[in-house]
């Protein structure tokens, strides 16, 4: 009995130590945001009097809400678009499969393997000529296309789980394809659609390659805003931490709330 208790204690200590190590940089970032600049570079301590000065200073330097608005706009806009385009496609693949369906799905996934740098130059030039550089719409379009393959795969997985009979019953009652999707498919698979959407939001929110290369100020999302702090003048740790905390807080909380759901979608249902 005693050894098992001891074992359990050791296990808990081990697991929590590892958790602490993994989470430490995030914890440190959050704590440093509430320190003064002097405290930030002093020897590490977990105990200090918190201050909001850094947050005020960061807000004074660049309007956080402008960048946050851009992030929200492109993340949710592209997710909405990807869902609107992806739902019919995933519906047809799950319920009206043909011989070509499987090949199409694999091909879609393979477009995701296309390295963005490989096509950066043409996209940059096309955007320049269309006047879409540094616009929210431009970035939204890119993110939609970037996430579309994964969105379709995830939706397909969730739709596949829906008993066929339910949709067939609707069809018997004379529902059109559109009605079938709007009144049966979407309500019944809402949790799956939601988790697909959330993952897409997270990927778009954190995307840095396109946002750094295609936007400068007007349409720059939080990823670009944070990158601007890497310049020498930005090397104030407390302010950097405050800005970083603000940039990741929404998506971190999102992730915490949805992690369980997300796994199923992420693994295309391969892991039950």
């Amino acid at each position, binding site marked *: 009995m005693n050894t098992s208790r001891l074992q*359990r204690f050791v296990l*808990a200590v081990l697991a*929590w130590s590892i*958790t602490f190590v*993994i989470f430490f*940089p*995030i914890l*440190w*970032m959050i704590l*440093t945001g509430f320190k003064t600049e002097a405290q930030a570079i002093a020897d*590490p301590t977990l105990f200090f009097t918190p201050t909001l000065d850094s947050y005020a200073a960061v807000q004074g330097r660049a309007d956080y809400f402008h960048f946050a608005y851009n992030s929200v706009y492109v993340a949710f806009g592209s997710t909405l678009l990807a869902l609107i*385009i992806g739902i*019919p*496609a995933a519906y*047809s693949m799950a319920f*009206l*499969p043909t011989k070509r*369906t499987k090949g199409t799905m*694999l091909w*879609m996934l393979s477009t995701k*393997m*296309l*390295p*963005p*740098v*490989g*096509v*950066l*130059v*043409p996209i*940059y030039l096309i955007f320049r000529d269309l006047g879409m550089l540094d616009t929210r719409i431009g970035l939204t379009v890119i993110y939609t*296309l970037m996430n579309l393959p994964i969105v379709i795969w995830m939706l397909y997985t969730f739709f596949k789980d829906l008993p066929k009979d339910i949709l067939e019953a609707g069809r018997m009652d004379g529902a059109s394809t559109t009605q079938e999707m709007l009144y049966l498919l979407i309500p019944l698979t809402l949790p799956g659609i939601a988790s697909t959407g959330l993952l897409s939001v997270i990927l778009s*929110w*954190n995307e*840095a*390659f396109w946002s*750094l290369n295609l936007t400068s100020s007007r349409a720059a999302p*939080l*990823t670009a805003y*944070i*990158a601007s*702090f*890497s310049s020498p003048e930005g*090397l104030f740790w407390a302010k950097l*931490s405050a800005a*970083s905390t603000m*940039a*990741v807080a929404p*998506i*971190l909380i999102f*992730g*915490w709330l949805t*992690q*369980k759901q997300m*796994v*199923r979608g*992420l*693994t295309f249902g*391969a*892991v039950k």
Partner: protein
Amino acid sequence: MRTRASGRTVGGLRSLSLQAPAVTLLLIWMLIPLGMTLWFSFQRYNLMMPGMEQFAGLENYEYLLSDPALWRAMGNTLVLVGSVLAISVIGGTLLAVLYQQEFFGRGVARVLAISPFFIMPTVSALIWQNMMMHPVNGVLAWFLGLFGLPAIDWFSSFPLLSIIIIVAWQWLPFALLILLTAMQSLDDDQVEAARMDGAGPLAVFFFITLPHLKRAISVVIMIQMIFLLTIFAEIYVTTSGGPGLATTNLAYLIYIRALLEFDVGGASAGGVIAIILANIVAIFLIRMVAKNLED
């Protein structure tokens, strides 16, 4: 007519029209930039010298392939992808086994441990560079100091390793998240039965747990490969590919050519090479995953 037609044809047509928007968009997304990249790669085309564009044949490729920078970047890309994959798959599996055990506050610990996956790459790069790995005031320097050890100037002494640490810190939690979920469907009775038959913890791990995780591991490898081949922000923020070429991967090399040197022709040739490399990986990967998803 429609009702008389065979279900298959109607289904095929309907299926086609429903998929049309997605397929068309992805085709455009793939073909137009790809075509343009190919075209530019045969041109002498520099944005700093407008009007000087002319057909260059294989010149860009010759120049690029004879440039040691390309091989260095390719090597760095493979080292980066390979080591992060190894760390996250091995570490993720061990941690999944650990977090599967019952201990005080398990749920909270799990959520905290997977958090780095949600942090944007630019932020994690800045936090690690400035606050963890800083040679003077960084937490790691302070920690080494406790043991009387000298601080390490991470980004100049071990540039590629530093990048690997940062990227692995972000992706190990992702592997953990997936593998932990897979662990939950492990059959307890089977483990119990094996124990009864005298199997030790190691035997249980290698003969029951690991085979059970096979599919999850292949999914982890596939998804991470997609994202790791194109790592950019971490390098952009911390080392800008340096010192020298120490942390320049393919993505960053093409970026330098295109947007810092304005050499569209050379950058496009690099892009074509990156696409070929990615496709070699993709063919192998997609086969593997498709096979795994079949049953």
